[in-house]
């Protein structure tokens, strides 16, 4: 049985007068990995950033419509609440350069001014780093700055940072596009682990990645949601000609 956790209703996003996401209706089932793909400039990243209201941080950006999280419209909530419940990982790893690895993991608590007992903090750090398969690599250098890690490790640290807040949904914005192939496969393996506890929405440029990691795939084109279906069906028997053109490489 699958219950819907995130649902968008007639969602539209704009940069000034530029209409970049058009009337998107989508239902994301709980504990699934949903890949969002499409050519550059198709609005997939903007849509993703709309889900946790990061979109409106850009001057001039506006949005209309509803994004329901467990039936509640996030557009009506204060963005702070939304972002505590929906974590995000970015294209480029962005650990806080002024914080140690340890503090980076609990940055969500630290920066929000949430005081936790030391033991609780230790538990969260170990737990989160274990989840992203980084604990063994960094457990002896927790006091070093996060920027000393390699790109792949930094990205896993950023995932651990998001996981540490125990969100319900994790958003990934092309999480492996700045990583080497080996780091990429490590991160991809994580997705299978993470979906046991969270719902993952992954924007990706890379069709093979979408096919490898996701349960469902959404295809965006020119700001519209063209097709949304089980990944297997999408890649073997797409129903829209534009999807077919895209996955067969007729345009990119």
């Amino acid at each position, binding site marked *: 049985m699958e219950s819907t956790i995130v649902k968008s209703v007639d969602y539209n996003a704009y940069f*000034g007068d530029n209409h970049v996401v058009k009337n998107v209706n989508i239902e994301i089932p709980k504990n699934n990995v949903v890949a969002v793909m499409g050519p550059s400039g198709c609005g997939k990243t903007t849509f993703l950033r709309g889900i946790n209201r990061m979109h*409106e*941080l850009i*001057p*001039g*950006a*506006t949005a209309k419509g509803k994004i329901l999280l*467990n039936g*509640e419209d996030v557009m*009506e*909530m*204060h*963005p*702070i*609440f939304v972002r*505590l419940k929906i974590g995000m990982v970015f294209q480029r790893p962005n650990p806080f350069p002024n914080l140690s690895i340890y503090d980076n993991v609990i940055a969500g608590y630290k920066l*929000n*001014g*949430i005081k936790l007992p030391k033991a609780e903090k230790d538990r969260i750090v170990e737990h989160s780093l274990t989840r992203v398969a980084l604990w063994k690599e960094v457990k002896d250098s927790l006091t070093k700055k996060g920027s000393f890690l390699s790109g792949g490790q930094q990205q896993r640290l950023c995932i651990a940072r998001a996981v540490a807040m125990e969100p319900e949904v994790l958003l990934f914005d092309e999480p492996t596009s700045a990583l080497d192939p080996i780091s990429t496969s490590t991160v991809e393996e994580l997705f299978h682990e993470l979906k046991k506890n969270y719902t993952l929405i992954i924007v990706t440029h890379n069709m093979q990645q979408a096919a490898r990691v996701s349960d469902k795939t959404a295809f965006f084109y020119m700001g519209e949601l063209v097709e949304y279906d089980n990944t297997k069906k999408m890649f073997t028997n797409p129903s829209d000609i534009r999807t077919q053109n895209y996955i067969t490489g007729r345009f990119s």
Partner: protein
Amino acid sequence: METLVDNDLIARPDESLGRAFSAPKPKDAAKASKRIKRSHRQIRTETFFRRSLIIVGLLMVALVFAIMLTLIVESIPSIKALGAGYLWGKTWDPVKDVYGALPFLMGTLLTSFLALLISVPFSFAVAIVLGEYYPQGWLSNLLKNMVELIAAVPSVIYGFWGLAVLVPIVRTFETSLGVPPMGYGIFSSSLILAIMIIPYAASLGRSMIQMVPANLKEAAYSLGATRWEVIRSVILPYTKSGLFAGVLLSLGRALGETMAVTMVIGNTTLMPNGIFSTGNTMASVIANELGEADKVVYNSALVELGLVLFLVTVVINMIGKKVIGKFTNE
């Protein structure tokens, strides 16, 4: 598309707060309600912080307006009593209530332009050496830091050094020229000013010269140009507006410089009759007399000098910034 404040700074509506976290799981209820309380406080602080930023931004605009308004309002008695003749009256005699600012205007113009004339070759030399000949290396780093230090030395120390060292030297020089050996005066002031304003044109000129695209220079080199020819025919034409802006910034500094000039110019209120004559600049006469100007018109006449100084430096600096802005956009 212009808004008064970016979207990001407009506080979010608060009425939605109550709806967040409306259905916490029972076991987390206590934790969640604590979190909500704290988050509500955070949101109020956030709104407060955003507003404080806007207020501080407004404050700067208000400050400049207040400064200008104060100078204008306080100049009114003098403008009313003396009219426009104030600016070309040649006599300044507070005892007889005669106020003509021309000697000070002349003093300021003479010292500033003479200083500029002396300092520009040196500033440009520094700019070319640091921007083109030796952009790196410890020696050029040292030169760069030394030139920056010139701007760091307090002006009262320049004045004191001028008084003790430069004035006697100038006096000897004047004796050898056969002019009245005062030592004090426009010439000494200009020398001190020239040293003080070197860094402004030099550092701006250096960064402008470093911005000249390498391919332009390489094009000239590939045609067989020598280094000097590249500087003359590529670098200087390319950077001329930037160098001009640097000269303007130096001029702005020179016009407003007070203490060093006050200490070596001689402080006479007569019309200067040459570059070796003593005199007063607008800034130095304000420094000397404002504290003891007890009569309303006297006081106001000095403030009006300040207003003139303010307007002139603002205009010069604005032109300078515009020129730099244009240059860096291109």
